[in-house]
């Protein structure tokens, strides 16, 4: 140990409540200090992990060798419930945005959601899929390998590394991400949903109409509505299954309550006009 080692002390360590080991009152001289004879302290040689243990860690298991277009499609497929947020990020990043601004935007997008995913998690997922990329302030590609080196300063004849300032990182939607965004077809998804669940169209119409009020409706209110429909009983389907499918199609939004949006209203006007809602009288 040299004198210079002893200079590296961090006051932050003493600020935290960190004392997993504690002094305890000494017991009777059951053991003599340094008397470890009762225990065999021989340590076996142990073993190193195999070199193959270092597997590339894919965040959601999407094959990194697939083209970006397919990786993006798979990501959106696997995160169908986060479709609105992912798409919101791509839209936000049509122009380069600072990483901390993206973080704030994701918080805004998820204001009414409960999610373990934060801005950086989505950034990683979308970056891994090839939908967004880091750029510098000028909009040029961000070179991950181009590391800033610490400054070397001299103090009392000794040299020290002095870490440099924080770096500015920007995110931008890639051409592949933009292509996915452009191809996104919520109206097509609504049509596909209604074609797939034709027998439930009366329920969808009732729900869309019921939630088309200022401030939307609570889950409890929607549930009270849906349980009145015989279509929801056999097989049993909870109101949230209808709500989520409509949300995945971007026909409804969750903002503390469920509310029908413009696309939902368009669906009511163009696709469900001739449908009789179930239960009736909630239009």
């Amino acid at each position, binding site marked *: *140990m*040299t004198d*210079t*080692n*002893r200079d*590296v*002390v*961090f*006051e*932050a*360590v*003493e600020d*935290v409540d960190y*004392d*997993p*080991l*504690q*002094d*305890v*009152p*000494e*017991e009777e001289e059951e*053991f003599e*200090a*340094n*008397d*470890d004879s009762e*225990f065999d*302290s021989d*340590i*076996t040689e*142990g*073993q*190193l*992990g*195999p070199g193959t*243990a*270092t597997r590339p860690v894919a965040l959601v298991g999407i094959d990194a060798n697939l083209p970006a277009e397919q990786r993006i499609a798979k990501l959106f497929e696997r995160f169908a419930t986060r479709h609105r947020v992912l798409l919101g990020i791509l839209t936000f990043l049509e122009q380069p945005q600072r*990483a*901390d601004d993206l973080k704030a935007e994701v918080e805004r997008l998820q204001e009414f959601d409960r999610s373990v995913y*934060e*801005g*950086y*998690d989505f*950034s990683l997922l979308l970056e891994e899929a090839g939908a967004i990329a880091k750029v510098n302030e000028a909009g040029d590609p961000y070179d991950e390998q181009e*590391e800033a*080196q*610490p*400054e*070397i300063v001299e103090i009392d004849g*000794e*040299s*020290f*590394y*002095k*870490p*440099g300032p*924080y770096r*500015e*990182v920007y995110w931008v939607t890639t051409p592949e991400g933009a292509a996915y965004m452009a191809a996104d077809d919520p109206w097509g998804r609504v049509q596909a949903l209604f074609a797939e669940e034709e027998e439930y169209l009366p329920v969808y119409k009732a729900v869309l109409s019921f939630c088309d009020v200022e401030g939307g409706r609570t889950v409890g209110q929607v549930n009270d509505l849906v349980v009145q429909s015989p279509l929801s009983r056999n097989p049993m389907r909870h109101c949230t299954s209808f709500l989520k499918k409509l949300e995945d199609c971007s026909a409804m939004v969750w903002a503390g309550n469920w509310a029908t949006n413009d696309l939902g209203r368009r669906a009511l006007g163009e696709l469900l006009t001739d449908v009789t809602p179930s239960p009736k009288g909630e239009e």
Partner: protein
Amino acid sequence: MADFENLVPEDMQERPLGEELDEALEATPAEEMAEMLRARSATYLLLSRLFHKEVDQVLLDDMHDSLYPVATGDADIDKGYLYISTYLSNLWSESLRQLKVDYARCFLGQGVDGYSAAYPYESVYTSPKRLMMEEARREVMHTYHVWSVDKDPNWREGEDHISLELLFESIMGNRAAAALEEGNADEARKILQGAADFLDEHLVSWYPMLAADMHRFAKTKFYDGLAYLTQGFITTDLQFLQDLLAEELPGEE
């Protein structure tokens, strides 16, 4: 259970340089050595903290605002400081999150085959089947007991976690410093011998295997650097303690 009083060295507070110089000039050999031992304990405390859990913003800021020696005389320590200071020179708004991800990837892993992470337990590297809670844990528990140190009941990891073993060295250093300051050189020698034995039989024996896995799994230079720094520090510290014990301590006849 008594409060742990030795954890934080009292001399970690910043003071005017002149005041420190005056004290240094007036310091007795015992006080000088005690100060050296407390500084050694502070480094162990930091290393222990870094292995214990993810870095938080306060600690990251503190580390970013610190200076790191370029040439300490030990290649591993030098590489550790270079890697860590390089990482700290490339911080951005998501570095804290990035470090949390890397901590989880490095020390927790995502597999169950025993080879999916750098598991920070001595038992994993010293038991044939890479299992936790094996013989090594029993040994360190015994040593902690001998030295009247016990695990916080809220700590849910095994006693042979690298963080606790490093913290044990920190505690021993502070105790030896206190003994020297009280003029009890015999007690200081006993404690330092215990610290050296624990280093030799445990940390220095198994840590290199953990470090090798950290180099494999860590994606950031922060944790890669921590692996080097810890390796260099415990190796040089064992030599330091052995050299210390080979000579008379201040106050010894």
